[in-house]
């Protein structure tokens, strides 16, 4: 039982690879944070794992089966994916946005002019999980960036997936909600979910994730427990010299700008 990538190579048809020889496995109960410089290939890796980008070589396996062989609707009930940017073309209310996710989980019949009670309850449960129940009737476009992001996370949670693939879910969140969201993911993992989350905040990753993966120039440079990965020479090599590590007894070091 895992979502696994084997020797993944991906490009967008222009020759130069975006991912090269990436191996990783995401097992139930694990919380992995994926970090790396801009353009390293993080989002493409997530899209490959979500079945949205077909790798040019290698394969993605979901519970031992090739991901590409699983019908998209069934895949969506197992994998929940949140892209970096989501842009509704028309005004959606928060409840309507989350209901789109709840429908994937089977809450609702094929042809319904409005969400049934089961769907509305699923929407409430998901919103409650991200502390956004009070936003239910608001328009998505009226919300602040952070509120919007939380609602989008709720819409993916409403799919009731076993694996969560989230591209910068904490972007635009205030400090409180960043820590709060990551501790929520931690709790999901205790309940048996698997979470793979792209983030630029290594301290957040170190505090809550089981492992940190560093993707740099299309290859997976490091993977391991936060204390193993957050080494000065590695981070300097990947992110440049303008950061330093502040040792903390008994915990992974803090990463600070210099």
């Amino acid at each position, binding site marked *: 039982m895992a979502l696994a990538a084997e020797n993944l190579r991906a490009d967008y*048809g222009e020759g130069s690879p975006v991912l090269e020889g990436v191996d990783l496995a995401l097992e139930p109960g694990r919380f992995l944070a994926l970090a790396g410089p801009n353009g390293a290939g993080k989002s493409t890796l997530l899209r490959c794992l*979500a*079945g*949205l980008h077909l790798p040019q070589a290698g394969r993605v396996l979901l519970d031992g089966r090739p991901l590409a062989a699983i*019908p*998209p*609707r*069934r*895949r*969506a009930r197992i*994998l*929940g*994916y*949140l*892209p970096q940017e*989501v*842009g*509704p*073309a*028309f*005004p*959606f*209310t928060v409840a*309507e*946005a989350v209901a*789109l*996710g709840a*429908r*994937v989980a089977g809450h609702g019949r*094929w*042809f*319904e*002019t*409005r969400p049934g009670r089961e769907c509305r309850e699923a929407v409430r449960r998901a919103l409650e999980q991200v502390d956004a129940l009070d936003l239910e*009737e*608001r*328009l998505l476009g*009226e919300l602040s960036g952070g509120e919007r992001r939380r609602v989008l996370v709720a*819409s993916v949670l409403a*799919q009731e997936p076993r694996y969560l693939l989230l591209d910068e879910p904490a972007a635009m969140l205030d400090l409180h909600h960043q820590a709060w969201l990551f501790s929520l993911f931690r709790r999901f993992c205790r309940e048996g979910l698997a979470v793979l989350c792209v983030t630029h905040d290594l301290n957040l990753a170190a505090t809550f994730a089981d492992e940190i993966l560093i993707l740099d120039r299309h290859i997976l440079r490091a993977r391991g427990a936060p204390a193993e990965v957050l080494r000065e020479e590695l981070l300097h090599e990947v992110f440049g010299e303008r950061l330093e590590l502040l040792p903390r007894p008994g915990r992974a070091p803090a990463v600070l700008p210099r």
Partner: protein
Amino acid sequence: MSAPAPQTRLRPALLLGLLAAAGLAAAALGLALGSEPVRAWQGLVEVLGRERAQWTEDGRILALRLPRVALAWLTGAALAVAGAVLQTLLRNGLATPFTLGVAAASSFGAFLGIAFPAFALPWLGGERSLALGAALLETWLVLAVARRSARADGLLLAGVTLNFLFGAATLFVRYLADPYDLARMDRWLLGSLDATSLATPASLLPWLGAGLLLLLFRVRDLDDLAFDPELAAARGVRVETSRRLLLLATALLTAGVVAHAGPIAFVGLLVPHALRPFLGLRHAALLPACALLGGAFLILADVLARTLPALLAGLLPEAFGRSSELPVGLVTALIGGPFFLALLLRRG
């Protein structure tokens, strides 16, 4: 800071009921009003219940109005639904059923038939069959080009380009045509709901039925596509397949009615806009509502088109003495334009 007012959507069942009632009321008006006074109920009973030979004057007038009202309802409904689907599909509230060139191709076909009757295959229904054929050919070209294009906006670009190409071809046919044909072409562009028997609206049913059937199977995909195509794909929508089938559905809905009624403006733009704030983007509710409102709207526009000239002739006999009715496309544009501006200003 005060919290913005929560968004209020209406119960779809309530709104659909109201719109259906409005449609019936519009149909009743459409049958009762026109250039001739008539006992509409009496006429309707005769047309539906008696042999043609037993019809009175009322029956004969109703026998002319009934197909017209039916054609107006079907045309308005089809254009409004096609508009709503294309606005979602292209993620653009300014899209109309004609944005991707179906109407331009249809006009080209019709004009070809008008200018060169030899092309028009009279046994197939004359210029209307050419209009229909050209519209379906254009849709096939859009789909074929979009399929070979790697661009995400390939569909829109292919449609807009073919719209221009068929527009140019139309101008070329007009350039070759004689003045009498030019006048007929201009009339065609303004739209008309002339129907001499119920066979005309009935002939649209296969096209509309096929389009609606496609929509029925893809109606859920539309909700997801309106929200975000990438998320839709992650949620199991086969985005490209869905887009192609939905475009085909709008083409079937549009091509049939435009071949008969001409490119009637604004219904497909206006109706989805008027309904979306109350229903949101749940297309299982939005599309039936668009059909009901679009149908009612076009019946009423046609009533105006038939009754206004008589009223205006009293005021300006020199200008309106000759014509018995206005082109319905002119009426929809005259009502639709200001109404749309009002909608924009109210929300802005």
